[in-house]
C-alpha cells in the first residue's frame, strides 16, 4: 500500500515537472561519407568521432537534447549516397546529414535534403555549386570550396611570382571546376595559363603528363586533382626532378592525410590551402589531442574538424529554436554567430556558405618537423571575405530574390 502511494506520488511528481520534460528533443544525425575508398582517411570514421565529440562538448544530454549518431558509407557513388539519404530521411528518422565528401554525392544529397525538408551540413565536398547555382535553403556548406582553394593557392602563388601556369587536371567535373576557378584567379592577378592536360581519372602514372608540364616551362604546375591522383603526381614530380628544376607545384586540394601519405621528404615545399590545421593554437592542439586519442593516434583533417564545428552549431541552433523543425533551425543557424575552438568566430551566410578564414600553408622540410604530424608552417591568412565568393557575384537564387 505504501509502495503504491509512493509510486502514485512519483507519477504525479513526474506530471508536475512535465513542462521541463516536454522540452526533451531527440535528434538523429547521420554522418554520410566515404568509409572504404579514396576519401576514407580524410573523412570516414574520423568524422563520426568528431561528431560524437561535438555532442559531448555541447553537453547535449544536460540541455535536454538527446542525440543519436548513425553513419554509412556512400562509396563516392551518387546513387548509393542518395539511396541512403532517402532511406535515412524516410525510414530512419534522421534529421540532419553531415559531411558527404565527393561533390557528385553532395549535390545529390543536397537535392534530396531540400525535397524532404531536412538539414544538410556539408564538410567534405569541394563544389562551390553547393552555395552557387545548386544552393538550397536546407544546406550549409561548412569547411571549404573550390573557390576558396583557388583564391588561396592560386592567388598566393601568383603574388609570389608564379605568374605562368600549367594545369594537370583530373578529367572529371571536380577537376574541371578547380581548374576553371584557379585559372580565373591566376588571370585576375595578372598571371598566364600556358596550357593544361586532362588526365584520366583515377590514374596511377603521371610521368607522361609531368613531362608535358615540364616542357611547357610554366613556373607553376597546378594539380587540379585529389586524393590518390594528387599523391602520385606529387611523388612522381619529385622523381622527375620537376621541383629541383625550378618549377613549383601547387596542390589545389591537398589534405593533411595526403601529406602524411606522401611523407615530408616528397611533399616538402608544397603550397596548399586549408581552413583548419591542428597545430594552429592551444585550443586546436587540445582538441586535436583528444581527437587523436579517440581515433587511433591520427590527427584531424579540416573535413573532420568541420563536422565537429557544424554539429556543434546545429545543436546550438536546436537549443535556441527549442525545436528541430528544419526551417526554424536553419534560420537560427544563419542568425547566430558561429564560435568554436577550431574555426574561431564566424557566421553562416544567406546562401548557406559558412564564413571563416582560410590559411595558406607550406609543407615543412623533414628537418623542420619536430614530431609526428608536424607538417605545416603557416604562410598567410586569407580573411573570410576574400576567401569565399562574394554574395554580389553569387549565382544562388536564394540571394538574388
Amino acid at each position: 500500500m505504501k509502495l503504491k502511494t509512493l509510486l502514485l506520488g512519483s507519477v504525479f511528481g513526474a506530471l508536475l515537472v512535465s513542462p521541463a520534460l516536454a522540452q526533451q528533443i531527440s535528434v538523429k544525425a547521420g554522418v554520410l561519407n566515404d568509409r572504404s575508398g579514396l576519401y576514407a582517411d580524410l573523412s570516414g570514421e574520423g568524422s563520426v568521432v568528431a561528431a560524437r565529440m561535438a555532442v559531448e562538448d555541447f553537453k547535449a544530454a544536460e540541455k535536454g537534447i538527446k542525440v543519436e549518431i548513425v553513419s554509412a558509407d556512400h562509396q563516392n557513388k551518387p546513387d548509393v549516397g542518395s539511396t541512403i539519404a532517402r532511406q535515412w530521411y524516410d525510414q530512419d528518422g534522421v534529421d540532419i546529414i553531415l559531411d558527404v565528401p565527393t561533390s557528385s554525392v553532395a549535390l545529390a544529397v543536397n537535392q534530396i535534403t531540400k525535397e524532404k525538408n531536412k538539414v544538410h551540413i556539408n564538410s567534405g565536398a569541394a563544389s562551390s555549386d553547393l552555395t552557387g547555382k545548386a544552393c538550397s535553403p536546407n544546406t550549409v556548406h561548412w569547411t571549404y570550396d573550390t573557390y576558396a582553394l583557388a583564391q588561396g593557392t592560386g592567388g598566393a602563388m601568383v603574388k609570389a611570382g608564379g605568374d605562368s601556369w600549367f594545369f594537370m587536371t583530373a578529367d572529371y567535373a571536380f577537376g574541371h571546376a578547380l581548374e576553371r576557378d584557379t585559372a580565373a584567379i591566376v588571370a585576375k592577378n595578372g598571371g598566364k595559363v600556358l596550357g593544361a592536360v586532362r588526365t584520366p581519372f583515377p590514374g596511377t602514372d603521371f610521368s607522361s603528363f609531368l613531362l608535358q608540364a615540364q616542357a611547357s616551362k610554366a613556373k607553376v604546375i597546378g594539380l587540379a586533382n585529389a586524393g590518390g591522383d594528387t599523391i602520385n603526381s606529387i611523388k612522381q614530380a619529385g622523381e622527375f626532378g620537376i621541383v629541383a628544376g625550378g618549377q613549383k607545384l601547387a596542390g589545389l586540394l591537398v589534405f593533411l592525410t595526403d601529406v602524411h601519405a606522401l611523407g615530408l621528404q616528397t611533399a616538402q615545399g608544397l603550397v596548399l590551402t586549408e581552413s583548419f590545421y591542428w597545430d594552429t593554437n592551444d585550443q586546436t592542439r587540445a582538441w586535436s589531442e583528444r581527437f587523436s586519442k579517440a581515433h587511433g593516434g591520427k590527427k584531424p583533417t579540416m573535413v573532420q574538424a568541420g563536422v565537429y564545428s557544424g554539429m556543434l552549431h546545429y545543436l546550438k541552433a536546436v537549443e535556441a529554436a527549442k525545436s528541430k523543425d528544419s526551417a526554424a533551425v536553419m534560420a537560427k543557424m544563419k542568425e547566430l554567430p558561429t564560435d568554436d575552438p577550431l574555426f574561431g568566430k564566424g557566421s553562416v551566410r544567406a546562401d548557406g556558405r559558412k564564413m571563416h578564414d582560410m590559411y595558406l600553408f607550406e609543407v615543412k622540410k623533414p628537418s623542420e618537423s619536430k614530431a609526428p604530424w608536424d607538417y605545416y608552417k603557416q604562410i598567410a591568412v586569407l580573411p573570410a571575405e576574400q576567401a569565399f565568393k562574394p554574395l554580389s557575384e553569387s549565382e544562388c537564387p536564394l540571394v538574388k530574390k
Partner: protein
Amino acid sequence: MFELLGIPPQALFGQVLLGLINGSFYAILSLGLAVIFGLLNIINFTHGAQYMMGAFVAWMCLNYLGINYWAALLLAPLIVGIVGVAIERLLISRLAHLDHLYGLLLTFGLALIIQGLFRNNYGSSGLPYQIPPQLAGGHNLGFMFLPNYRAWVVIASLVICLATWFVIEKTRLGAYLRAATENPTLTQAFGINVPLLVTLTYGFGVALAAFAGVLAAPIYSVNPNMGADLIIVVFAVVVIGGMGSIMGAIVTGFGLGLIEGLTKVFYPEASATVIFIIMVLVLLVKPAGLFGRPA
C-alpha cells in the same frame, strides 16, 4: 626543326621511353597471368591484389623489420608466393575440374577480401615508400630527364621476363610444364607430379605479381587499391597477346605501354581506354590474340 603533329621529336622520345617503362609493369603482370592461365586454365583475378600485397610486404619489411628495398625485392615475392601456394592448395585446386568461370569468380572474391582487409588496416590514402638511395637522382638524356629508378625498372623487368621465357621454353623444367599444359593426364602417367607443378606454377605467377609490386612501391604510392585499378588493363594485355602465350604477354605488355604513352600525348583523355579499343580490334581480326594459337 620539324614537328610531328605539333609535338617536337625530343618530347616524343621522352614519351616513348616512359611508355616502355609503364609497359614493363604490364609485361611482368601479364606474364604472371599468362603463366597461370597456361597451366591452370584460370583467370587469376587476385593478381592485382597480389601485386598490391608485394608492395605492402616491402613497406612492412622496411617499417616493422628494417629490411631494405633490395632484400624486400627477394623476400616479398617469396612471402606472397607462399601465400599464393596456400590459396592454390586450399581453394583453387578444388575447382580444377570445373568451368573457367568458377576460377575467375573465386579469385574475384579473394581479391575483394584481400583489398578490403588491407584497406581496413592501412586506410586508403596510401603509404610512403622512398626510392632506395642507390637509385635516387637521375640523368639528363638531352631530350628528357630520366630518373635512375625508372631505368632500373625497365632493366629489372626485362631480365625477369626473359629469364622466365627462357626457363619455360628452353629448360627441362619448362618442358615438363609445357607437357602438363598440353596433356596433364599423360604427363602424370610419365611420373611427373602434375599437382605439385600446378601449385608451384601458381606460386611463381603470384611471386611475379609481388615482384612488380615491390618495383612499383617507390614510384606509385603503396595503396590498397593500386592493384584493382590495374588488373582490368592487364587482362586486356593478356587477351591481346594471346591467353597463355609467354612471349605474347611480354611483347604486348611493352607494346601497349608504348601505345598508351603516345595516346597520353595526342589524346590524353582516351589513354585509359585505348587498350580496350585495341583489344576489340585484335580479337575481331585474330580471335586467339596476337601470339596465341587458335583453339
